[in-house]
Structures are given as structure tokens and as C-alpha cells.
């Protein structure tokens, strides 16, 4: 399950999301797209009554649809723009999302997309097998002096979180690409600089997620998402996050470290002495205590940094992946196992991680963003 937004602390038990159909009032599942009693569409505002497209539908579509065509982000590796979508049967996918010939649901460009702005960094974002939409989002970038990985996970129980998540990820990535680099300075000064920039990028993500809510016009249950950004500057990696999407460091020497600490019920329990296994098995484990969006509890992002003495991998991912392989050393072994057959090529390795998560059940959206790091200066792809 995806994280459910909750009020922190004492009222966590109320986090179990009870949703009722706005039409008939019958209870519905948080992830349901349609009310089983009356058939009312519960999900996207734009899809509700195809009868009357909302004025925001166009913007919504725009926000939902990868890819970006910004120069510094480079072209995505899979063609996702241009001509009308085609079904596997050859038919045309209608604007309502279904094939006009065979009636199968059309795969959306949003359902699966990849980015690889440079040879050492890549990301794969996938709907998984069970969720009707891909509410995960990713944005990665590479320039001469930095590599940026941003991942957001839309909160399933909120409306149009897929829109908010993508807007937030892209806004933060753009902000970090545009940020000035520390000209010189000691490692501690550089870290201080990137902490400030990451905080600013988190704010940009928060603004984008809030704007997305305004565009989709859903006030009752506004879209929200988690946020994690990793910035690699030579031997430094700086990480900021809100929620339970994670950043890991896997050194080629066997080091395995979870850099981020979840803003979640489970990590709160672990901090209070519970074992990871017990805490993460609890139904409330995934209830997050912080998120971005209109109803964000606010505050600066959590921050950490590390100085990398050996080469290795930085992995930024959503719980669609780590839920199947939570421990850092387990995830290191998994990563190495998936990287070996493809000779450590980042895009193929990220894709293999996503495929592996789908093979475990694909119960949630899955995102894996990978970068080689810890080397003096990452080489730019041609």
C-alpha cells in the first residue's frame, strides 16, 4: 500500500482512511476509482463526467503527461510524445482512457516512463500491477558539477496525487539544476550550501504540489505526496526528504546505508525501540507523518549528507520497491544481483529493480532512480 497521510502522534490510529462515495454516501476503498454501490467515479476530477470536461482538464493532462523536453534534462530514452496512443490491438485509445476498438484500458504514458539524462544516472517509474494509476513520480538531471535525483510518491487516498507528485518532482529537480554551485569551500561549507538549496527545492516542490491541487480543484481531499531529493556533488551526497520515500548509499566496498529516515509511524516506533520487522509489519507502518501538498504539516525537510570515499550507487526509491526489500544490506545484494547481468548500466539496472518488484507482486507504484557516485567527477554521456 502507498502511504496514507495521517496526523502525527496521538491520533495516528485514526489514520485508517474511511472514505465515502460523494454521490451515494456508501463506504468505498481509499484506492477505489469507482463506487461499488452507485458506480460514481471517485478518482480523477477530469475523468468523472466525461460529459463536461472541466476547464482544468487540459492542464491536468499536461501535468500528468511526461516527458519534459527541457534541454538540461536531456531526452527521455523511451518515446512518449507525439502521436495518439495505440492499444495493443492496434486500436486508438480514446481520451476516456479506453481503446476504441477492443475496450481494453489504454496504457498511459504516465503509467511507465524512464529518464536517463547522462550515462551514469537513470530512473524508471512504473504503475506496478495493482494500482489503477501511477502516482509515483521521478525527475533526474545531471550537469558537469552535480547529479540530481528526485522521487515523489503520491498519497493514494488523496485526489489527483499523480499530478501533484509529478509537478513536485520536476519543480525540485529544476530548482536544483538551476541552483548556483558552491564555487569553492570546505566540505562542511559545501554541505551547508546544498542543505540550503535542497530546502529551497523542497519549497519549490511544495508550491508545485499546492498549485496542482488548485488546478484540479479538489478541496476535500487535496493531492499530496512524499518527497526525497539526493544531490551528488563529487564525493558529497546531500539528501532531503519529507515522508517515506528513501535514499540509500551502496559503496562498492560493500557499505550499505539507508541515508534517509522515514517520516512514518513505523520509524517512529523503531526510534522508540521496536524492531524493524515488528514495526513494518504493523498495518499502520506506512502511515506517513509528513508530506507535501495543501494540507502539508509543514516544516523544513529532514536532511542528511555523506562523504563518499569509494565509488558506488546512490539509490532513491519509493516504497513500491523498498517494501519488498527494506533492509539496506538486502537491498544492496538485490541491486548487485540486478546490476551484474547488465554490467551496471544504470537504466537497465533501475528497470531490473522495477521488474523485480513487479515480480514480487507489484502491489504499489514503483520508482527507482540510480546514480553512480563517489567518483571524483562523474563523466557526462555523449
Amino acid at each position, binding site marked *: 500500500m502507498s502511504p496514507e497521510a495521517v496526523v502525527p502522534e496521538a491520533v495516528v490510529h485514526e489514520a485508517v482512511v474511511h472514505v465515502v462515495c460523494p454521490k451515494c454516501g456508501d463506504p468505498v476503498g481509499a484506492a477505489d476509482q469507482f463506487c461499488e454501490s452507485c*458506480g*460514481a467515479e471517485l478518482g480523477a476530477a477530469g475523468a468523472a463526467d*466525461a*460529459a463536461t470536461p472541466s476547464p482544468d482538464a487540459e492542464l491536468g493532462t499536461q501535468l500528468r503527461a511526461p516527458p519534459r523536453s527541457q534541454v538540461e534534462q536531456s531526452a527521455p530514452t523511451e518515446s512518449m510524445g507525439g502521436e495518439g496512443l495505440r492499444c495493443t490491438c492496434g486500436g486508438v485509445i480514446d481520451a476516456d482512457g479506453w481503446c476504441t476498438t477492443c*475496450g*481494453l484500458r489504454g496504457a498511459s504514458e504516465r503509467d511507465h516512463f524512464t529518464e536517463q539524462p547522462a550515462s551514469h544516472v537513470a530512473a524508471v517509474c512504473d504503475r506496478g500491477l495493482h494500482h489503477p494509476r501511477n502516482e509515483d513520480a521521478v525527475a533526474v538531471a545531471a550537469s558537469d558539477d552535480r547529479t540530481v535525483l528526485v522521487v515523489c510518491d503520491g498519497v493514494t487516498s488523496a485526489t489527483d496525487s499523480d499530478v501533484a507528485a509529478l509537478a513536485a518532482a520536476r519543480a525540485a529537480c529544476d530548482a536544483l539544476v538551476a541552483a548556483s554551485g558552491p564555487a569553492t569551500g570546505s566540505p562542511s561549507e559545501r554541505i551547508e550550501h546544498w542543505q540550503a538549496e535542497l530546502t529551497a527545492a523542497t519549497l519549490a516542490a511544495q508550491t508545485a504540489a499546492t498549485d496542482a491541487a488548485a488546478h484540479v480543484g479538489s478541496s476535500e481531499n487535496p493531492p499530496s505526496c512524499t518527497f526525497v531529493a539526493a544531490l551528488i556533488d563529487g564525493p558529497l551526497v546531500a539528501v532531503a526528504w519529507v515522508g517515506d520515500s528513501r535514499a540509500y548509499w551502496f559503496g562498492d566496498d560493500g557499505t550499505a546505508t539507508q541515508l534517509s529516515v522515514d517520516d512514518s509511524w513505523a520509524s517512529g516506533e523503531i526510534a522508540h525501540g521496536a524492531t524493524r520487522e515488528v514495526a513494518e509489519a504493523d498495518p499502520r507502518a506506512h502511515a506517513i507523518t509528513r508530506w507535501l501538498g495543501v494540507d502539508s504539516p509543514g516544516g523544513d525537510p529532514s536532511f542528511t549528507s555523506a562523504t563518499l570515499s569509494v565509488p558506488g550507487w546512490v539509490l532513491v526509491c519509493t516504497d513500491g520497491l523498498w517494501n519488498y526489500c527494506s533492509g539496506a544490506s538486502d537491498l544492496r545484494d538485490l541491486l548487485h544481483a540486478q546490476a551484474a547481468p547488465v554490467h551496471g548500466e544504470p537504466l537497465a539496472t533501475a528497470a531490473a529493480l522495477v521488474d523485480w518488484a513487479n515480480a514480487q507482486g507489484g502491489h504499489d507504484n514503483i520508482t527507482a532512480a540510480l546514480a553512480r557516485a563517489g567518483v571524483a567527477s562523474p563523466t557526462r554521456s555523449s
Partner: protein
Amino acid sequence: MATWTAEVFENEYLAADATDVHAIVSVGCTGAGAAGQSGDAAEVIIVDTSGSMSQPHAKIAAVRKAAAEAVGDIVDGTWFAVVAGNHKAMSAFPPRGGMVRATEITRSQAEEAVRHLEPSGGTAIGSWLRAAIALFGSVEAAQSHAILLTDGRNETEAPGDLHAAVQAATGLFQCDCRGVGADWDVNELRGISSALLGSVDIIAEPEKMAEDFRQMMQASMARGVADAKLRIWAPQGAEVLFVRQVAPAIEDLTSRSTSVSALVREFPTGSWSDESRDYHVAVRVPAKPLGSEQLAARVQLIVAGEVVAQGLVRATWSDDSTLTTRINPAVAHYTGQAELADAIQEGLAAKAAGDDTTATLKLGRAAKLAAETGDEEATNKLKRVVDIADADTGTVRLKRDVSKLDEMALDTSSTKTTRVKR
């Protein structure tokens, strides 16, 4: 501009190997405005002036009053005419034939003219319809509507003449039909009103005719959307089993479609006012593996070539029997109401043919269905024809000395449905 909504009520979950998807699509229209706003509107009032209308004299007196009141409700600018029908059709107004636009002056002239209607001659309804076709053909109207009143059967022309006239009129104008007294044939008028997208009803007491005419004319004048079509897409390999309007009245549309493309068919729905209509759409799709999801139908309302509302009918195959065995309440309700209409009509037909056994069985079934679907109007009308011993089991006894008017009232109202409780 009219605002449209489409809501779909279905249980989308199908068990393994199940193929039939049933959905109620409720289409609503608001802000329709008034007739004539999207091109001219045209009205023809056709009243029976055969000799029998003077027996009793109250009938022709009622017709004069009802026609005058209906004319009074025709909005300015509407083309209109009044036809006096017996064994042939004559223009009661305007005096020289053709149609005129409604103004204060033409309306009062018409009101005066219908006061002088005199009964004589036979009944040839086909000739009345042909006259209406000619009248509507003489003007360029975006929406054409007629009211037809008779007190008798179509006796002075061959049945084929009426059938041919109805076919010729289909798609040209809509027609609400009324029968006064007990000497007309419900099936005959229902055949006309059904083909011409109108209503049928009995006017048991002549003094109620004027009010009924006013209601029909006011309803017609409120239909600001001149014409809408129901468009249904079903996937390749699927079969549309039936398309049936189920509210406000049952009307099987299945055989009335025109093909738009290999997968798309259109059904006429006529003009719309601020109202909602429910459609029962049944589609048979090839079974898919458990967990598969598919669109079984797109149901759209089309106005002036544009899609104004769309509902999606879906199918999901599941091994969860708590999902697949559920019957959607709207589908269940309207399935019962359609069966009720059939049971009433078949029961009355059997009774008329002297087959009391079948009549008792069918009307018993009707009593059971009326109780189950909470259709009090049908129950009350059934009680005038049968004694209901036990509605739960459908046990009834045919009443002796049933009034013909009561039987006809039950028959004409059989297709009217109650709305599902939501």
C-alpha cells in the same frame, strides 16, 4: 445552453466465463430552455371529429375546449395548425390549410375556429397522420410535435394504411396520443405513439381533456433541445443485446438504431426538456480471464453532432463471489418494471381472448412484480381488474364485471415506470 449529465449504475464484476453486462445509464438535462430556440418549432393538433364524438355530446364539447386551451399555450413564433380528422383529414385552422406562426391574433383565430368543430363521418387515422406529414413538410422546423386524439378504432381505412402512415411519419415528428372513452384500441394508439417517440394515455372523463391537452402542449413547449440521439459503442466482438428506455416509460429502442460505424449505433430519443431518462443497456462481451478489465460500452448523448454526455459501462472479471453475485439495485428495479409491463399487457390480452387461466397467471405475476418494485400506481390499477389474494406469491382472481375503462387505464399505464429509490 443545456447542461447534460450521464451516470452509470451497474455491477461491473463478472464471474469467470460470464459474458453479459447490464447497466442503467441515467441521462439528465437541465437548462433546456424553450422549444424553438434552436430553429423553429412546429405543432399540429389532431382531433377526432368522427360522428361518434357526439355520443355523448360531452366528447365534442371537451375537444373544442381542449383544442382551444392547447392552442393558447403555443408560444409565439411556433408554426401551428389544427387538423379535424374523420374518414379524411381537414384543416380546422388555418382555414385555407398549411401552417401559420403563433401570434396573439392567430391563436385567438384558432381558438374561435375550434369552437365550431362538428362531428360527422368515420375514422381514418392514417389519413390524419399523412396530413400532419404534409403540414410539417411545408415549414422548415427543427422540432415537430403533434397531439392526436381519437375516440375510436381505425375503421374506415385498411390497417395497412395506418401502418404505412406511421412508418412515413417516423423520424419526422413526435406524437402524443390520447384516447377518449372506451371504444378505441390501446395497442393501435400505442403503436403510433411508440414509433413517434410520444406518450399514450386514456382520457376516461371528457372534462379532464382540456387539462391533459394543456399539459402535453406545455411539455412540448418546454423541450428546448430539438433533437438528441443516444449513441452506443460496444467493443469488437461484443453484441448489444438490447437498449431500452426504462424511465419515465419503457420503450424498447433496440430495433430502431442506425449504424454509425462497425462498433457504434445511434438510437433516436427526440427532443428534450429539463428531465432525466434512464436507459437499460445490455451488452454481451466475450469472457476474459479473471482479473481482466474492459470497457463494455460507451453510452453517449449526441446533440447537433456533439457528444454532450458520456457514461462508461465496464466489466471486470473476478473470482470474488461477494462482488460478482451482487445485482445492482437500479438494474434489478428496471428489469422488474419491464417484466411488469409485459405481464400486464400479456395478461390483459389473454383476458380479452377469453383465456382466463393465462390471464390469471400473468396478472398474478404482475401483482407480485408491482409489489416487489414498489409500484403503487400499478398495484392500484391492477386491483380494479383483479382481486389480489397474496401479492407475495402472485395469487389473484379475475374480477367479474370489470369496467372496460379500468382495463384500458391499466394497459396504457403499464409502460410507465417508477424511479428506482436511490
